[in-house]
């Protein structure tokens, strides 16, 4: 029996942030400038509530003060663990192995074993969380010079978030094997073994905000051709453009039959 403590990795300066789907409230989502036309027929960005218009380059940007920018986003240590996912405590890893001399004369021996093994998640699942808001925001300054920064609109686009499953399950491998060693002539041994592994809670990456299959074919979300250029696919026109959500939920199996392995064990 072995015991693991896999402590969550965390940023000492608490600059990382995670996105928790259960804390996201659609009603608090900021508005986005939508594509529209002004009185002269020019393509412009339109605030869907106030009707304010801006240059078309701002289509898809966030309307200032229109919602909660950190909707569903929590910073490390602010009401959540420093590591942004749960500490699973002590992991119990039982292992068992045996060898049995069937005949008592060491002619046939059965050997086998089974065990659990845990992996520490790779560091990238935490490293990437430092580029989430509020630590990192990437406003784009259009139509200006360096000395003009701060004088014109400096609007945020929907951030592309990287999140990690707060449950924090550790990637787990179950390994097992069973084999028979049979003594042959000329001091040789035939070894036939079955060796297998099964993995669970393996890391995977999933886009939480991806539109469903076939979404682009739905008439209600299609963008008219004359508006399409600045808002590709309309799909980015959500508050969050993409959430790369890392969960530990996949499985993998591997099995091998190793046969025949004949070992000549006569001493020199």
């Amino acid at each position, binding site marked *: 029996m072995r015991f693991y403590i896999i402590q969550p990795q965390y940023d000492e300066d608490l600059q990382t942030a995670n996105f928790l789907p259960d804390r996201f409230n659609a009603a608090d989502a900021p508005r986005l400038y939508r594509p529209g036309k002004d009185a002269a027929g020019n393509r412009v960005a339109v605030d869907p509530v106030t009707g304010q218009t801006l240059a078309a380059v701002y289509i898809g940007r966030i309307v200032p003060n229109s919602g909660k920018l950190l909707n569903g986003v929590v910073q490390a240590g602010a009401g959540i663990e420093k590591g942004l996912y749960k500490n699973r405590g002590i992991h119990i890893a039982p292992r068992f192995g045996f060898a049995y001399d069937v005949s008592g004369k060491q002619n046939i021996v059965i050997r086998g074993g089974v065990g659990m093994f845990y992996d520490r998640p790779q560091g990238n699942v935490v490293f990437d969380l430092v580029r989430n808001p509020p630590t990192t925001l990437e406003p784009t300054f259009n139509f200006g010079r360096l000395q003009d920064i701060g004088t014109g609109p400096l609007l945020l686009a929907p951030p592309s978030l990287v999140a990690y499953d707060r449950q924090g399950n550790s990637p787990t491998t179950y390994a097992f094997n069973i084999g028979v060693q049979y003594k042959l002539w000329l001091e040789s041994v035939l070894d036939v073994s079955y060796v297998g592994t099964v993995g669970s809670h393996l890391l995977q990456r999933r886009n939480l905000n991806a539109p469903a*299959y076939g979404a682009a074919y739905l008439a209600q979300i299609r963008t008219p051709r004359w508006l399409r250029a600045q808002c590709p696919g309309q799909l980015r026109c959500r508050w969050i453009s993409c959430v790369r959500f890392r969960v530990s939920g996949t499985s993998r199996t591997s099995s091998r039959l190793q046969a025949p392995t004949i070992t000549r064990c006569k001493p020199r």
Partner: protein
Amino acid sequence: MNRRFQKGLLLGVNYTWSKALGTQGQDLPGINSFGAPRIDGNQRSANYGPQDFDRRHNFNVSWVYELPRATTNKLFGYALNEWQLSGIYRYQTGAPYNIGFTVPGISAYTLTGTQTIEGGRIAVVGDPGKGTSSDPYRQFNATAFTTPKPGSLGLETGRNFLYRSPINSWDLSLAKRFAITEKAKLEIRLDAFNALNHTQFDSINSTLIVRSLTDPTPTNLPFDASGNLVNRNGFGTISAVRPPRNMQLSAHIQF
């Protein structure tokens, strides 16, 4: 079988049958790559299959053989004694692979009507074969595939359903030792990797290109309707081979 070095011969023989299945073959795969986790309930039916590292058959033989002492004459023995032959034979099933496609101006995501997740997959309309053959221009039946249709759910084919050519290689070495002093020896060694210079097929042109979305006529088939080879880099042809024979000559002083 493992024979310890005895009477001038060391020998090892082993065979492993293996099968590796799963829904993903790497740690933290990308969200846009082939086999990326899906956003619907079809993750298992779409992606459960042979892993990228699945190698079904593995057979290896390795040996070291010291030629018998040819003469007791010291002068002739300097040339005729202490020769050694060694080698490794390796047979391993090739890696599994997928078939891709290109429709000019249309992305795989456009066909599924979604974005930033995997798109449509190649559709099978005939028997594609196993994915490998001895003909470098017909690794599979290139006419057995067509592109997915708009509205695809990306379920036309599974993951890794074809296999590349196996590795079938001999590495051989010839070595001669010369006594310098009672304890020190000079070894001159010639190693040949892929000693028989056996062509080892590796990568395959596995992307089908069609004329357009409405006309899925393939444009990169290797053979025309009459069976003439017209495109050596066409769909289903070998695009790369493993290294040819490599030889190295080395000298070692043992003391």
